[in-house]
């Protein structure tokens, strides 16, 4: 195990390695026990290191920082601060994006609003009812016509009648005892 391999193992353990290196080390860990042990050791340390968070600056220090600048402490102004920062850090981009999106939002609300706010008169509603009924009557008529055709014409004339004729013939033959 040379220095290069050790470095690669450490990088893998700390999740700093590229894909090929990861594959290479993975294969090595399967083959070489020493590699695997080393990797596991570093991996364990890396996991513990990752759990370490930044230390929190005590509140009294933050107050002092504000005092030094002659400011009141900032309480829950983060969203407001973020908006101000957004517009001041990259004003052109942020403003443009904000105006476009605001415009879209207003347009969408405007498009939607009239339909919600229309009040229909009773006459309009009743006319709509009549219109709807007319359309469904038309559809229903077409269905019933088809149903009638199937029952009266197709079934009766084309299927039922010939079937009846055949059945009659057969019954006559059977009753006469004449099988042909």
């Amino acid at each position, binding site marked *: 195990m040379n220095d290069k391999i050790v470095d690669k193992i*450490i990088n893998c353990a*700390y999740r700093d390695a590229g894909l090929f290196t990861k594959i290479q080390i993975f294969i090595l860990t399967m083959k070489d026990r020493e590699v695997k042990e080393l990797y596991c050791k570093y991996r364990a*340390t890396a996991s513990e*290191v990752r759990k370490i968070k*930044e230390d929190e600056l005590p509140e009294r220090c933050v107050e*002092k920082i504000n005092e030094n600048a002659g400011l009141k402490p900032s309480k829950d102004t983060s969203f407001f601060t973020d908006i101000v*920062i957004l517009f*001041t850090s990259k004003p052109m981009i942020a403003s443009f994006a904000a105006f476009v999106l605001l415009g879209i939002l207003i347009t969408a609300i405007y498009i939607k609003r009239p339909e919600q706010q229309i009040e229909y008169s009773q006459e309009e509603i009743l006319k709509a009812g009549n219109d709807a009924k007319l359309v469904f009557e038309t559809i229903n008529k077409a269905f019933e016509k088809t149903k009638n055709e199937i029952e009266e014409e197709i079934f009766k004339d084309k299927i039922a009648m010939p079937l009846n004729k055949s059945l009659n013939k057969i019954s006559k033959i059977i009753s006469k005892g004449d099988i042909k």
Partner: protein
Amino acid sequence: MSGGFRLYIRKMIIEAKYHYFIRLYKNKIFTYALYMLKNRMDADDVTQEVFIKIWKNIEEVNYNSAKTWIIRTTHNACIDLLRKRGIELKRETGIDEYFEETYAGNKTENDPYVSFNMKHTGETIKEAIQRLPGNLKSVFVLYEIEELKYKEISNSLGIPLNSVKVYLMRARKRLQEELEKKEICGAENYE
């Protein structure tokens, strides 16, 4: 727009910017100072000092480059304070190549704050990180704990990008050695 209103808006923007920097960087500055100085009181002082500098330069500080500028200022403030503590440093490249020799010789048992903190933090890894030589520790803390990128660390500390990678690798190896040493020797070295 009247002059008074414009001034008010300007003041509002400046204050928002300052509060933004406080919110974003207070813990980063404090954490870095704490690891470098191993002393909460000194870390507080350095944090105050850095924010005073931020306030004085608030209008010039650019959002994009703020992070590296702030970390650099913090690092320099830590070095200045360590120097005042009587530790000789060589500052040829921003990070002392011989920091390891000089700072590593500073035994923690002589510092009552340090031994107190070490006993009572109870976190083995943190202790081991604290014991890393200064140059390696800087890079390690900035990368692993404060999650800066290589380029940001390089710009903040004024060292080449490759040096950052080398120091980081050395720090990881040294940390592992420290942890294994502690396992073998037990806690007796730290009492």
